[in-house]
């Protein structure tokens, strides 16, 4: 097609005509999209600066010398067209859209820009590569697809939000997640559910998404000003195209399974280990041989997953539409976790006249999540429980009908003892009963929509107004069985909560585009934006149920003795005045400048407003006359600097005062926060320098960036004895910087006959350093201190097992101390390497040290896609590393109580001289043996991995086959098979190197009883009608 067009243009070019005197040429420029006239088209006499621009109705009039031969018509998004003048005085032109350029139009916030004109750092991700994959939400599939975009799925719970970081961690205690903008509407990204992890982005049907743009550097994101510190992800949904309605249906079905399970003791091994713990501690034995049960069988399953999407897209010249319906139901491998989503979208664009356009984007989804208690140390937490339940005890007891045939003690307090003399530690319940009878259900109706109107006021000047809404009606239900498990203590509980989030956003922009003197193109945008968000909830709960019968679906009046209610309300407002100025000289020298003044309700009125600016410049070296290379077809240098802010600092972060508190003595008010009216914006200074280079078939992009975050809004800790609420005061203290290098290379490696191979590789190196803080920030596992990266692991340094006596040893300063595991002589003792058996000298307690950074230092992705005739295949690989993980799951499973253990405990020390890394067993000595109140270097491991993320194989039926078989009713059909997350290469010994209990910034890198992440096998079909 392109070649045809090119040939056509060349043909016209060769036509020459006879000259005449000065004359006026008039005409109208139209296009298929704008048949009533394309305004703003540059009409220039070839070889001169003489020209004009078409009017609103696409007409123009231009005086030309009599000997003028050719007019050049050009406009963004269209192929430039040259028309011979000849003897004509009326020249009407029909411009053809430049498909290549259109593909490279990049959404940049409040508008679009051509890829070649961009001077900031913007990563575009085409949704076609990921739209058939199975995922609860789209963002998990962005991982590894673009440099500088880190997305981690920390567990296999459907509904748990992935962690998204753009160019590192850019805030310490404010949000570090990017702004998400869907079709121009900044959406609410806070989880509204109180009973489940319910990722709000799971309400968006991934199949509706056409493309993602990630604004990474300051210049690109500066247009979002105060909201841009963590980067911006712009999502554009699919829209109608001119032409016959195109109906598409796609489906896939398959199986979800856990990538790995814990390696636990069998029943028989448990008996030996459990009794040895107690014997060593001079206590009587409790365990007796019985069954060999793997309680993990009870919580894991092969989850069925399916998705169906049907869309219709099309339109006339004036009206274009896209409608879709979608359905997905995904069962997690961990019972009873399941996510189902019903979605609808309607996007319509209409030109009322050539100068007035309106349109809307509307989506509605209903998402239901069935969750579970997977609290890392909750007694009914599925992983915690299943890995600790006694393996020599049966799961079921068919005669125990009072507990539905599960093995439960008669009083309901815990799992049955089997042959043991005691039940499991902490009276943990039978997880099978819990999973079967307790319900955690969250559902949400979500409407995200916008409507816009656009008016071309004069040539090149367009006014646009867009109103967007984002409404989440979140509805929670939790029901706990009175007989056993978490509901037993309150004799059953039913909880329900309605938790809406409501936002409107109003944007008004004026855009002026012009080209003057042929070579100078100008694109100026000015605008204002208002946003208001409201979050509220009310909750009702009943406990002490009259009958288990009533609790299953909803609160039923009168079915409980105790009733409770609660609620909350918060508002946040935001307004902004902004402008952007883009200038380009011959497409060769590019300049962009952005300024924004934002106000936010979370700060005190006197400090509400902040001004943010950004600027960037680009130089397309390859367009210079001196640059003459056959090898390098494109070479552009970019540099940018901007200051941006972070609005996600907490609702009313600057405010203080007294909140309502309900005590036993009555409802009172309690001092809840210290006001800090001086609280200012948290600002990031973002510097970026980059280049785009096309050498032969290979395109390179490289960027170096440095983000300095200043005046971090920190919940600055105060000494607890001051009694300050939360032991912190919000203050602007602290600075941090992220710097790094991003590289991307992609190429069509082979394109020979039927075979084609495309490759796309990216890697990001990043380092983080905290440069200023009021005092170190210490959590259970992590510590953040000036001069280090944020959230380093911090804790005790393991010095091994004393081979002489089996005592665990730790560093105390530079000395090694041992904890003496001898009844009657427990305690820390000095360790003398010359006489290791000597425990006569009292030792100091172990001391803490830094044990490793938790943020990956490098990460990236590599996609290889192949086509051969009708076959296609993609292998997508992801990698990450340079970080350390605290394997708390395994430490917990090395416990010294009466519960199951990790199989590696079989290596425990048993005799003098034995070299091992598991000390002598000793009942009850978890704390001293494993230093369980902080990280422990024995359980700190490297987190490097290479993951084969997806393998997709497809086959597209030949058109000829389809047309003969279906008489043209089916225009295309593709079958595919895919496996997601098939292999991971890592030295990490836990279930998965991305497992992470925490998603905040200060606590990170801790693998602690999270559900294993998911492997998915699916078969699917795409059909077009």
């Amino acid at each position, binding site marked *: 097609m392109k070649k045809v067009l090119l040939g056509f243009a060349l043909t016209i070019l060769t036509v020459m005509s006879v000259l005449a005197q000065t004359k006026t040429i008039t005409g109208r420029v139209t296009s298929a999209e704008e048949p009533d006239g394309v305004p703003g088209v540059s009409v220039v006499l070839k070889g001169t600066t003489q020209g004009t621009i078409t009017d609103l109705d696409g007409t123009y009039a231009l005086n030309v010398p009599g000997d003028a031969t050719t007019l050049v018509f050009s406009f963004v998004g269209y192929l430039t067209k040259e028309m011979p003048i000849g003897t004509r005085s009326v020249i009407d032109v029909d411009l053809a859209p430049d498909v290549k350029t259109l593909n490279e139009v990049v959404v940049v916030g409040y508008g679009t820009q051509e890829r070649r004109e961009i001077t900031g750092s913007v990563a575009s991700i085409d949704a076609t590569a990921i739209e058939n994959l199975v995922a609860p939400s789209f963002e998990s599939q962005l991982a590894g697809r673009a440099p500088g975009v880190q997305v981690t799925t920390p567990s296999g719970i459907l509904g748990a939000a992935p962690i998204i970081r753009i160019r590192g961690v850019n805030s310490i205690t404010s949000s570090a997640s990017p702004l998400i903008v869907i079709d121009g509407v900044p959406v609410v990204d806070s989880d509204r559910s109180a009973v489940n992890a319910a990722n709000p982005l799971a309400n968006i049907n991934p199949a509706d998404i056409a493309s993602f743009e990630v604004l990474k550097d300051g210049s690109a994101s500066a247009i979002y000003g105060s909201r841009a510190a963590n980067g911006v992800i712009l999502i554009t949904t699919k829209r109608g195209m001119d032409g016959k309605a195109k109906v598409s249906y796609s489906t896939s079905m398959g199986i979800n399974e856990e990538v790995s399970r814990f390696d636990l003791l069998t029943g028989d091994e448990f008996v030996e280990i459990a009794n040895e713990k107690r014997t060593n501690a001079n206590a009587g034995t409790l365990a007796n041989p019985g069954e060999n049960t793997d309680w993990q069988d009870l919580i894991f399953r092969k989850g069925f997953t399916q998705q169906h999407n049907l869309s219709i897209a099309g339109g006339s010249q004036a009206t274009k539409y896209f409608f879709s319906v979608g359905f997905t139901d995904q069962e997690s491998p961990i019972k009873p976790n399941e996510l189902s989503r019903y979605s609808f979208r309607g996007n319509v664009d209409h030109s009322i006249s050539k100068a007035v356009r309106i349109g809307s984007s509307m989506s509605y989804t209903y998402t239901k999540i069935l969750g579970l208690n997977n609290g890392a140390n909750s007694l009914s937490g599925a992983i915690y429980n299943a890995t600790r339940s006694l393996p020599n005890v049966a799961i079921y007891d068919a005669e125990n009908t009072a507990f539905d045939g599960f093995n439960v003690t008669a009083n309901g*307090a815990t799992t049955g003892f089997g042959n043991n003399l005691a039940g499991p530690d902490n*009276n943990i319940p039978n997880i099978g009963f819990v999973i079967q009878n307790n319900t955690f259900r969250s559902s949400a109706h979500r409407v995200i929509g916008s409507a816009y109107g656009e008016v071309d006021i004069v040539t090149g000047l367009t006014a646009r107004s867009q109103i967007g809404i984002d409404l989440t009606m979140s509805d929670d239900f939790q029901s706990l069985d009175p007989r056993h498990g978490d509901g037993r203590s309150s004799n059953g509980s039913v909880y329900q909560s309605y938790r809406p989030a409501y936002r409107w956003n109003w944007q008004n922009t004026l855009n002026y585009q012009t080209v003057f003197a042929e070579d100078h193109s100008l694109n100026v945008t000015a605008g204002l934006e208002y946003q208001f968000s409201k979050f509220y909830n009310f909750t009702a709960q009943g406990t002490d149920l009259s009958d288990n019968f009533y609790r299953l679906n909803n609160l039923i009046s009168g079915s409980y003795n105790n009733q409770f209610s609660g609620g909350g309300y918060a508002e946040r407002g*935001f307004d902004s005045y902004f402008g952007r100025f883009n200038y380009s000289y011959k497409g060769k020298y590019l300049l962009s400048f952005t300024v924004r003044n934002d106000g936010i309700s979370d700060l005190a009125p006197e400090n509400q407003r902040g001004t943010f600016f950004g600027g960037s410049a680009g130089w397309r070296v390859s367009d210079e006359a001196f640059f003459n290379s056959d090898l390098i077809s494109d070479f552009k240098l970019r540099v940018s600097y901007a200051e941006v802010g972070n609005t996600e600092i907490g609702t009313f972060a600057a405010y203080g*005062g007294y909140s309502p*508190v309900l005590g036993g003595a009555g409802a009172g*008010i309690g001092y809840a926060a210290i006001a800090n009216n001086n609280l200012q914006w948290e600002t990031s200074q973002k510097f970026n320098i980059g280049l785009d280079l096309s050498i032969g078939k290979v395109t390179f992009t490289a960027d170096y960036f440095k983000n300095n975050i200043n005046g971090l809004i920190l919940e600055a800790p105060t000494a607890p004895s*001051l009694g300050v609420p939360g032991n912190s005061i919000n*203050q602007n203290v602290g600075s941090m910087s992220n710097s790094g290098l991003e590289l991307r290379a992609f190429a069509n490696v082979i394109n020979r006959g039927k075979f084609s191979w495309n490759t796309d590789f990216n890697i990001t190196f990043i380092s983080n350093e905290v440069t200023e803080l009021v005092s170190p920030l210490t959590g259970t596992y992590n510590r953040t201190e000036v001069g280090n990266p944020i959230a380093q692991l911090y804790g005790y340094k393991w010095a091994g097992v004393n081979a002489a006596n089996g005592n665990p040893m730790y560093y105390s300063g530079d000395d090694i101390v041992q904890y003496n595991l001898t009844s009657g002589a427990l305690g820390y003792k000095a360790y003398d390497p010359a006489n290791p058996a000597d425990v006569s000298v009292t030792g100091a307690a172990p001391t803490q040290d830094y044990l490793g950074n938790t943020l990956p230092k490098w990460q990236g992705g590599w996609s290889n896609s192949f086509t051969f005739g009708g076959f296609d295949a993609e292998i997508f690989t992801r990698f990450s590393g340079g970080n350390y993980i605290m394997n708390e799951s395994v430490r917990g499973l090395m416990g010294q109580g009466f519960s199951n253990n990790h199989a590696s405990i079989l290596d425990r020390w048993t005799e003098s001289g034995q070299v091992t890394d598991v000390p002598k067993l000793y009942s009850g000595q978890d704390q001293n043996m494993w230093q369980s109140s902080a990280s422990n270097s024995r359980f700190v491991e490297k987190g490097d991995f290479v993951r084969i993320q997806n393998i997709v194989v497809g086959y597209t039926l030949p058109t000829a086959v389809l047309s003969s078989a279906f008489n043209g009713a089916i225009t295309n059909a593709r079958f595919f098979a895919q496996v997601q997350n098939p292999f991971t290469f890592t030295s990490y010994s836990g279930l998965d190197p991305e497992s992470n209990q925490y998603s905040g910034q200060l606590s990170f890198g801790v693998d602690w009883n999270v559900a294993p992440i998911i492997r998915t096998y699916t078969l699917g079909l795409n059909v077009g009608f």
Partner: protein
Amino acid sequence: MKKITIKNIKLALVAAALVGFSSSCDVTDLTPANLIPDDEAFTTAARIESTVLGVYESAQRGYYGGAVQRGYPFGAANVEQGDLRGEDMYNDQLFYEITYVGSYNPNSANNNGMWISLYRMINRLNIILGNLDEAVSSGVLTTEQGNGYKGELLFLRALAHHELLVHFARPYSDDPNALGVPYRTFGVDDVTKVPEAEAVGRGTVGADYTQLLTDLDQAEGLIAAGGAFRANKGAVIALKSRIKLHMEDWTGVLAEYEKLKAMTYALTPNPVTPFRGGTSSDNIFSFVNSAEANPGVNGALPSMYGNPDLGARGLVKISPVIWTAAFWKETDARRVAMTTKSATGVFTDKYTDATTYTDPNVILRYAEVVLNASEAYARTGKMAEAVVLLNSVRSRALPASEAEYTVSGLGDGILEAIWNERRIEFLAEGRRWPDIHRLSGSGEMEGVPSKASSRSITSIDFYTGAKPIPMDHSIAYSSTTFIWPIPLTELQTNSTAPIEQNPGY
């Protein structure tokens, strides 16, 4: 002409819209719906009453592990920690393991929870104390109301600091010059007050006890008598009796006893009565728990201490150590009628509401003041008076067939008998640790005695003598772990004048 008209209409529309935006959209002038600003909190008498109720709330529902849970400091945790540091209640599960076996460190949760929640309570009340005079002088409160609140808050301040002293400082009875705990008498409700607050150091135990008595003496003069569910004059006096006992001020203990005796308090004939509603003549002060506000399933005494056969969790049992002790008579009503049994052990029945956790947390009882006085008499050589008071507690729980104690019968064992009586009478009330603390300081105990090995008492057989009780977990008085470490965060986040850690940690 036509075109110009259209343009004008468009421009007018845009202009109108712009005017509309700027006038209609003030979205940043918002205020929180859930925060009463500082300057409005003390403007009405009702709000001041609310702030005082807020102090009770913080006493009963403090922060533990970053969330309101588990009844720190006085909703339940003072009892649980006080019991499980001693030998008479037995830890059956991981919940109180660290406390029970003494493996706490500067990071462990229980000492952190106690420290953080007590000082949070203290700052809440100090802020109010700093605003009361103004409220009185501006007429928001009457002088009488102002004094009542002041007395109430000073009592709570002393109660909180004494709890800190017994956990984090060495006993007064050993060395009043030992390191105390920070005792602030002003609130921190502004960033600018932080440095002054950080400058308050640990001082000495002696200075802290002096301040305790200063607060309580002042409170006594301000506060009126009243019911047990709010601070009252009797509570002030009873707490003074307790503190003077720790200071070994025997005459002081007796003086406070005399004051209380003159009020309406009395022992209840049935020892369970103080635990059935909390309004008996024996109840001097308790923190109220309600169905809506309580320490929850992971903290409430009826949940933690109750019998699993009765719907409780039963993570803590009565220890076979005291159950099998010879001094606890088989016929004692506190044994017969105030405990329950299951196949796995013996549980206290002082707290019964295992479903909604509404049992009040009993803080001060007249019986304690009586036994304090008994000990003070005994220490000052007034054996007859001592034995009378001891019998008044003991014999009310025993059948007439059990002989009363006599001066001659007890002889030199009188103090031992009083202490044993305290172990029985206050079992499962958290009083064991303060006694171990002060008596170890005075050299009359050697530290924490041996306890039944954690998680080893798996059946009722250990209570009947059928199985020997494995013993462990004693802590010598001289040991570092006899007192708790100061939380690490306290030392790390005080940027100007970090306080001193207890030696050895």
